[in-house]
């Protein structure tokens, strides 16, 4: 546990001192969302209808941006070797890195999400379901992303490979995340999509670090 906290604290500190990366993700998120009204016209009814989906898709793409770097810096400067030799089990350390990734990218995204949703004209009643769905869904995105980041480590053009590997795996989270927003707008039962998002998270929580650990072992060989 000490190692988990030490790694989490270090990664947060590094993110804080580098600063610009988290800002880049937010700027991408807002800019990409702003493109939609330009492309499909400012018709309020239409935008209102798709706002939830747009927020989910753009947030997902923005989260992808930062995934490549999840293990890359540690891999290139040799720190990953030392982490692999730490007495703690590797999946636990991976979980610490994923937690730091979530705190530094998904959390700022969640702060920007209601603003973007309202800008697109989403009804105020859909904001709470959107936030609940993002809170349950984005940790899964970071966890699944870690698998892709670990598998593409050491590959040439790994940054291009990550989305190819990871995006198909993101689809379940996207479906039920958007369904939760939809339910909030239509007044339907909110519980089922949120429960499924929670179930996805509970499955990803132990499985993704194990898979990522196998990927990292392979990359270090």
């Amino acid at each position: 546990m000490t190692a988990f906290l030490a790694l989490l604290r270090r990664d947060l500190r590094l993110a804080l001192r580098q600063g610009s990366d988290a800002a880049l993700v937010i700027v991408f998120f807002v800019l990409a969302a702003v493109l939609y009204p330009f492309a499909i016209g400012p018709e309020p009814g239409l935008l209102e209808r798709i706002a939830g989906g747009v927020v989910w898709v753009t947030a997902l793409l923005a989260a992808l941006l930062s995934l490549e770097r999840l293990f890359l810096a540690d891999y290139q400067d040799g720190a990953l070797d030392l982490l692999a030799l730490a007495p703690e089990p590797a999946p636990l350390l991976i979980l610490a890195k994923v937690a730091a990734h979530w705190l530094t990218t998904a959390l700022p995204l969640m702060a920007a999400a209601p603003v973007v949703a309202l800008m697109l004209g989403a009804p105020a009643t859909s904001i709470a379901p959107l936030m609940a769905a993002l809170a349950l869904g984005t940790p899964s995105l970071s966890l699944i992303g870690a698998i892709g980041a670990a598998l593409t480590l050491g590959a040439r053009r790994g940054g291009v490979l990550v989305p190819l590997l990871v995006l198909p795996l993101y689809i379940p989270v996207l479906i039920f995340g958007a369904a939760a927003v939809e339910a909030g707008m239509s007044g339907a039962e909110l519980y089922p999509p949120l429960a499924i998002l929670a179930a996805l998270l509970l499955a990803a929580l132990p499985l993704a670090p194990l898979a990522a650990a196998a990927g990292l072992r392979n990359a270090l060989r």
Partner: protein
Amino acid sequence: MLSGKGLACRRGERLVFSDLDFELAEGELLLLRGANGSGKSTLLRLIAGLIQPERGVLSWQGAPITKEDYRAKLAYLGHLDATKPELTPREDLCFWLGVRGKIRAQQAADLTLAHLGLEGLADLPCRLLSAGQRRRLALARILASGAKLWLLDEPFTALDEPAILAVRTMLSQHRASSGLAVMAAHGAALELAPSLELVLGGHAAEEKA
């Protein structure tokens, strides 16, 4: 304590070395020698457990190396320093001590940094350090780890005379307190009185011929 029997390792298509035997007891230093590319680093990574041997067995205290309790016993210095440009040496050292399960290690960290002549630089970001100073920081991690087995890949790279001297002292103290070390090095290592020397590179030469 640490022994390898019939070790062979393949990297890609190439058999880097084969039929390698060694046996290391407490307080002993195994020096790996050989030309560039002869497999010194590979052997160190193999002993660390980062890669698996193609053939042969590595054992620690008579038992084949099993992951976690063996990992807690070793400290590995790779050819990369694993320093972060944004962190200070003190933060870096405290972090790696934390990874080894040591909390509130600031005092121990400061003491170790002083040992390697980094006390004046403890609060400077690592991006301002020279290559030799970063190497010293990487060595400080080894010294602070309290590990029984040190695996050192070219520890003297980029070091100046006083630092080389400090590393020699650190090694002889480690051996005096019954620690083991495996080291890959060139010239500067000759005065270390290694217990064993392993010259690698037979195979590389063979393949060239």
